[in-house]
């Protein structure tokens, strides 16, 4: 057997093996790309629910139509919400081990926000804000290709007591020893949930002494306003002092989701 001929055999075998493997690789790339084209993702309307421990649960249904020929594996979705200072206030993850080819799947991605954690910044109660959020979705495509997509979003946070105002006190005569002080209270519920609870307001004089207190029960559905008046019954001299010297209100909010107060609002 010639030396050259002896070497030709492994060379030929190597050549054939290489060609077969390259063809296999090209076919794999082609199939994977073709499958990628037939993937379809979508998101449904987010649903809000609230629990008494102050947790707001935002559920977002995510639809995955895998019409390609490759399975999707280790589907992982993570959302992180931060406050305006960049501190993380919520991290939520959803996981689906496999979405077989030719099938549709729905993932309910639950994002929980603890409103008590957010109350470090009272602006969330009284001002609409944009909450910075980051979304990361990862999956293993066509068995071998881990793919990750991420984006930064802003979630519009609606304040439950948007534009909360207590108007100037006006006096009314009740009897010979006591007078009535009436103050208008209003706010709008811009939150995605109903605010149900009660509002307690203390009327304080210029020397910080509590002259009187009043409270009101409210139940305000989302995107509606609250407009009412509170009446304080105070001794006549206190009523006179209120009208002349001014002071401040201490406002306490108590809802099924959270308690907040005092919010100090000066008057006079």
């Amino acid at each position, binding site marked *: 057997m010639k030396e050259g001929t002896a*070497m030709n055999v492994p060379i030929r075998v190597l050549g054939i093996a290489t060609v077969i493997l390259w063809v296999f690789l090209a076919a794999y790339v082609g199939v994977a790309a073709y499958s990628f084209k037939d993937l379809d993702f979508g998101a449904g309307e987010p649903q809000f629910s609230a629990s008494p421990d102050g947790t707001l649960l935002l559920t977002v249904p995510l639809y995955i139509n895998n019409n390609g020929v490759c399975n999707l594996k280790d589907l992982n979705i993570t959302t992180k919400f931060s406050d305006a200072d960049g501190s993380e206030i919520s991290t939520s993850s959803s996981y689906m081990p496999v979405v077989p080819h030719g099938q549709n799947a729905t993932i309910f991605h639950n994002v929980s926000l603890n409103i008590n954690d957010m109350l470090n910044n009272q602006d969330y109660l009284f001002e609409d804000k944009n909450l910075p959020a980051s979304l990361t979705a990862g999956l293993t495509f066509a068995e071998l*290709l881990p793919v*990750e997509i991420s984006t930064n979003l802003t979630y519009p946070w609606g304040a439950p007591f948007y534009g909360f105002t207590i108007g100037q006190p006006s006096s009314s005569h009740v009897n010979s020893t006591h007078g009535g002080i009436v103050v208008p209270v209003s706010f709008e519920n811009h939150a995605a949930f109903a605010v149900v609870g009660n509002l307690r307001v203390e009327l304080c004089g210029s020397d910080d002494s509590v002259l009187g207190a009043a409270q009101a029960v409210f139940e305000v559905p989302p995107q509606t306003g609250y407009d009412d008046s509170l009446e304080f019954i105070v001794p006549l001299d206190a009523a006179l002092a209120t009208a002349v010297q001014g002071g401040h209100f201490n406002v306490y909010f108590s809802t099924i989701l959270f308690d907040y107060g005092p919010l100090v609002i000066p008057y006079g």
Partner: protein
Amino acid sequence: MVEEKKKRQNKVKDIAFRVVRASVTAILLYVLYLLVSSLLTPVFDFVPWLAETIEVFVTVYIVLMILGDLTRGTIFQQFFNVARSLFLIGYLIVSMGDGVIRTSYESFSLTINLTMFYTFTVVLSLIGLARAILQAISYMSERAELASGFQQPQM
């Protein structure tokens, strides 16, 4: 005289055959590239630079392949084969780096981990390089055998 004419005719035939063979291979490879690139169009939307680099790669690869086919039976064919294998490995190393592609599309950032794919292609390229080197060794040993007139007994 007649034999010389025959030899020249054979040489012309041989060269024509090489040209046809190289052209057919190049056309087939280009058609394969067009088919695969049409399938990869959705990926190119996310990674626009990929289309350009793949085009450059295919062009250089086909040129080296044509040169290898045209110089078939000479030492230059071995050079071009080795060059082609080295170019493939070099291209993979330069274009894929650590095997992770990071790109941005509008406000989204996309990360594709091609490590497995990268490993597979580099291994295949190394096998191709090994084959090219073996071919060069085989060619040189055949030449040496012919030059020395040495021939092993048939087995």
